[in-house]
């Protein structure tokens, strides 16, 4: 029972973390290697708002931080990525460099040690089937599922969402129908960054805000996306359940040290067996040689 409950929690956590990365990649084909940096940035912003500007209420700080992260994401596209769009090598290097600059800049600016923590939304814990689960984790599961549903609704029933999907499916056809490709890319980067900020706000109260988390988040997000098939949303969720449970199982039966090893091995095995990922069917043609 312990394994099932914590497996579900871990899986939802992973899919929250990787949703932003997938969204950006599926819509604008930009592998956003600054994802982990944006995650830490928004966590740090919340901490800053609460502790440096005294009297900032917690919910307001969260909204402000997520909004700012979204703006940062949009600015990254508007001023940097727009010039190198389509050049894959440059995109990877540029986003990775921006991510590193943010993370190491924060580290230099004093984000070191375990003093940076966010308060949990609700203290205390509850017993579910004889397993003690704290409220924060339950909130994560609830909000996570809510996020998936609202994203689904957003992309199917709103005008912007439909435009985003149009660009993702066929950029040229969408442009002929009057959808601005750069505008949607900006929006997708803003939403992707906001999602990573949102995940940070939900997850960071469980631990410290440290720079290393940024790298780990990036790795897990990429692992989940590769296994699920780059750019496939359903695949992302399924893959995060696969990795999530695999991690909890290794933690229970082998050792915590191997969590990262599991994620990395899963990538390699997936690439060997089914290179386009679990749900990456439509891209098999162009992604494979």
């Amino acid at each position: 029972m312990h394994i099932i409950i914590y497996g579900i929690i871990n899986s939802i956590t992973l899919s929250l973390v990787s949703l932003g990365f997938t969204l950006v990649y599926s819509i604008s084909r930009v592998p956003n290697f600054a994802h982990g940096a944006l995650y830490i940035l928004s966590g740090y912003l919340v901490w800053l708002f609460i502790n440096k500007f005294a009297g900032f209420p917690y919910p307001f700080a969260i909204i402000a931080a997520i909004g700012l992260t979204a703006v940062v994401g949009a600015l990254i596209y508007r001023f940097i990525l727009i010039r190198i769009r389509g050049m894959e090598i440059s995109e990877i290097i540029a986003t990775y460099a921006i991510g590193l600059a943010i993370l190491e800049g924060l580290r230099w600016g004093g984000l070191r040690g375990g003093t940076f923590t966010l308060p949990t939304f609700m203290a205390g814990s509850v017993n579910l089937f004889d397993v003690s689960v704290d409220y924060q984790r339950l909130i994560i599961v609830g909000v996570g599922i809510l996020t998936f549903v609202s994203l689904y609704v957003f992309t199917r029933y709103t005008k912007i969402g439909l435009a985003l999907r149009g660009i993702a499916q066929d950029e040229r056809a969408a442009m002929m129908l009057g959808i601005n490709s750069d505008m949607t890319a900006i929006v997708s980067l803003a939403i992707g960054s906001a999602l990573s900020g949102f995940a940070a706000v939900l997850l960071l109260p469980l631990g410290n805000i440290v720079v290393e988390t940024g790298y780990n988040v990036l790795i897990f997000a990429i692992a989940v996306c590769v296994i699920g098939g780059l750019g496939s949303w359903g695949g992302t969720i399924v893959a995060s359940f696969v990795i999530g449970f695999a991690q909890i199982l290794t933690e229970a039966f082998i050792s915590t040290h191997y969590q990262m090893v599991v994620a990395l091995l899963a990538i390699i095995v997936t690439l060997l067996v089914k290179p386009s990922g679990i749900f990456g069917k439509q891209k098999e043609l162009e992604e494979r040689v």
Partner: protein
Amino acid sequence: MEMMRKERIDRGLKVRTEGLYAISSYREILYLMGPRLLLIVGVMALPFIFELAPYWKRVINIMFVYALLALSFDFLANYVGLVCLGGAFLTGVGGYFSAIYNVYLSFPTYLAIPCATITGAAFCTLCLIPCLPLRGVYFAIVTLMYPLLFTRIIEALDILGGTNGITGVDGFANQYVEHYIIILVVIGFLFGMRRFVNQDIGLVLRGVKDNDQSVRASGIDVTRMKILAVFVASLIGCFGGAYMAHLYMWAGISLFALDFSIIPIASVVIGGGGTLVGALIGSFILVPLSEILRAFGTFRIVIYCIILTGFIVFKSEGLMIFMQRKYHQFERWVKV
């Protein structure tokens, strides 16, 4: 309003040196040989120039290691189309192999390094084979993760000295051996690679980068070509790692450090991708810069990243291509 545009025309000298006239006079010969000789002589003289600054003499060695890594990145990225974000993987594997040969199997230094280079390169290639049939960002992702994976494995299993690393690796006989081994190898690899990419096989590799379908249509196995390219690039990187293990007389998980992945990439972008020499020039600029900025701690990574992004966005051709253009062509304004 009068519209003007800049026109670029090849210098007469350049045109003459393309054919048999290249050996017609000392001027033409000098035009061709000058830059190459300048590089070789300059690089060979470096240890003597810094004779009085022992600290900077150490920096020279590291600078050349980074130049090797940059060379390997440049070759893979711009001639084969594989973006390798894990230069640290190559140095780490090379360094550990050399330390294992030297300490556990007691090979002498000058045997351990070549053995480690070859076995390390074979090992790296084996590790990277799974992602070679794919295009796009997959290779970048996997190479980014391998150094982290190996760090974790070494930490978790506590093998190969664990977090302490393997100590007691033999050093070099004296400082000049230290300098000239790496300098000669860098020059050798540089001119060797230039030759390699201009042979038929280099053409095929460029074909793999630009249009793999057509290469396959010509009856050439794309994956095999990629494996070959990765092996060559790993040879270069692993030599750097093996050399470093002996330079520091130690092999530890810091050989998998992020620096070995980032600085070479930045060097290539600054120096000019696809020129191979640019990789060297980039690292000759960046590594001393990073030593100067050492006082700022991790802030120097921020500075690199800003330089890197700036170059990618605003001057994506790099310094070397810019200089080549100035050397071979003159410019003038003409009416449209």
